[in-house]
């Protein structure tokens, strides 16, 4: 029992690795679903770094999702660039934007910060729609090729599944490493009380910006993966609504835990499959979920799981 406690993550990794050939039954549909889950896990985890740890509210994270997606899409579809460098170009642009607006944006507090991030999201989306010649505008960008590296093409569902989830594992692992370290502790200080943090020599602005850039880069990676999977991009997928949906995933799973947002993304993407399929219900459901979480379970699903686990451990040690 104790071993499971410590090494449960290995089980999860094994499950992820063996899912398609076994339970997934090589089903393209199910793998496709899990590919979406993986992409949103990356997005949600990136937002957790920014909101759950550094404490900076963002209602516009889809801006970086969009930048990654469109840079990858445009460079590969229109200019025939190889996908891997295109993805890196997307990451570079996202990092540059985050770095550029980071200082003034993150100097804002609360409502102003929320509005600024929303404004940034809208600016990116309206630019995408407006610069039709480059991006395809509202009608979208077509013919994005599959992702490939050194000639190896990830053109089947199964292959793409492994690509995405390999990246998910990397992102989650590095996020865990960061947050469970002195760096993560520093973020918590900044999140708790910037005045006190400064008194101990913490350069709050510097740390906040660095986390902003990192989370932008992760979101950008998710965007590139999205582009190569869909083959087609529409500006609607990157609106403030998407940012808010990621926010719901984050809170549902448990903000500030890294595992939480992963759980939230999984849950939120799979829930429509199990319950009502109607797309129209999704918005109300997301809103209701978020409300319920805020009022009754602020620590989210992961918080509940940890509760259960510590109670089991307590019972076990009696």
């Amino acid at each position: 029992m104790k071993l499971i406690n410590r090494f449960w993550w290995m089980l999860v990794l094994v499950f992820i690795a063996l899912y398609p050939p076994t339970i997934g039954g090589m089903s393209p549909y199910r793998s496709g679903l899990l590919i979406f889950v993986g992409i949103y896990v990356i997005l949600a985890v990136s937002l957790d770094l920014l909101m759950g740890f550094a404490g900076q509210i963002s209602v516009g994270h889809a801006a970086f999702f969009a930048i990654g997606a469109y840079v990858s899409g445009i460079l590969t579809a229109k200019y025939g660039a190889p996908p891997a460098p295109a993805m890196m170009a997307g990451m570079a642009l996202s990092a540059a934007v985050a770095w550029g607006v980071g200082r003034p944006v993150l100097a804002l507090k609360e409502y102003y910060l929320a509005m600024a991030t929303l404004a940034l999201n809208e600016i990116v989306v309206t630019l995408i729609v407006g610069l039709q010649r480059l991006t395809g505008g509202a009608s979208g960008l077509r013919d994005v090729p599959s992702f490939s590296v050194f000639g190896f093409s990830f053109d089947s569902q199964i292959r793409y599944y492994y690509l995405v989830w390999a990246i998910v594992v990397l992102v989650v692992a590095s996020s865990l490493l960061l947050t469970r370290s002195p760096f993560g502790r520093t973020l918590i200080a900044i999140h708790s009380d910037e005045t006190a943090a400064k008194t101990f020599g913490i350069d709050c602005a510097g740390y906040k910006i660095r986390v902003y850039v990192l989370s932008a880069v992760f979101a950008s990676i998710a965007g590139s993966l999205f582009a190569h999977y869909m083959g087609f991009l529409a500006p609607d997928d990157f609106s403030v609504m998407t940012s808010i949906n990621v926010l719901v995933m984050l809170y549902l799973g448990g903000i500030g835990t890294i595992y939480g947002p992963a759980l939230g993304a999984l849950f939120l993407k799979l829930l429509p499959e199990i319950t009502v399929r109607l797309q129209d219900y999704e918005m109300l459901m997301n809103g209701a979920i978020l409300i319920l979480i805020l009022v009754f379970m602020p620590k989210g699903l992961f918080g509940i799981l940890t509760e259960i686990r510590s109670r089991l451990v307590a019972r076990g040690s009696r």
Partner: protein
Amino acid sequence: MSTPPQGRAREKERAGLAEEAFLTVHRVSKSFEGVHALIDVSFQVKAGQIKALIGPNGAGKTTLLNVINGLLPPDEGRVALRGRELAGMKTEQIAALGVSRTFQLLRLFTVNDATVLDNVLLGAHKRINPTILGTLFLPGRSRHRERVMREKAMEALSFVGMNWAADRLPTALSFGNQRLVELARSLMSEPELLLLDEPASGLNDAEVEEFLQLLLAVRARGITILLVQHNMNLVMRLCDDIVVLDFGKWLAEGDPAAICANPAVIEAYLGAAGGGGSC
């Protein structure tokens, strides 16, 4: 717990050795929206002293600490630490020079279940200075440094008698204990100047007594202390020197006996009628 240094004699000796001013506050003024919080305040603190900053409510004491520590820029005047100009520097930079402080209304870190130990470890931030790249690519070095820091943190907690609470959440502790954690956190940063804002407020008599002994032990380590405090009993017994503010202005300065006898001070605190007072 450590014992206080022996006798007044040693204190006098120490005061004689360190004559030059350690901290200089020179003609500092600060206003907010027409309210003059500080008006032309000047005083000095000698190295190794425990100096009290007292005055009735609203006298500007916390504002002055905020100016010294860089949280507020003064409108006029200078603040110097061992001759080095502090005014205009950012708080983080001033912290790097060896100034630490505690807060009147406790500012402990509580998000994401940060423990007492986490709080104390954060006191040593400037020695750790974690970075993203360092954390991701040099995990071995990080881990080693972390182990060293944890030992030091536990020492700091032991010094204040709170090592038993290392894994507790600060909010689960009593107010007095939280104050001790704040003190441990400040000591962890190995300051040369410690600014304490009402550190004994909210403590009962036994806790105040403990605190007094602790501060003497802190001074024994060579740390200079500037203390804002309402509890006159503590101030009289603990401090070498006192500066009094009233309505933002410097009112009086001197050793405890002199201040106690000062009519202007008595009036400011107690009104012209005078009365009890714990002098």
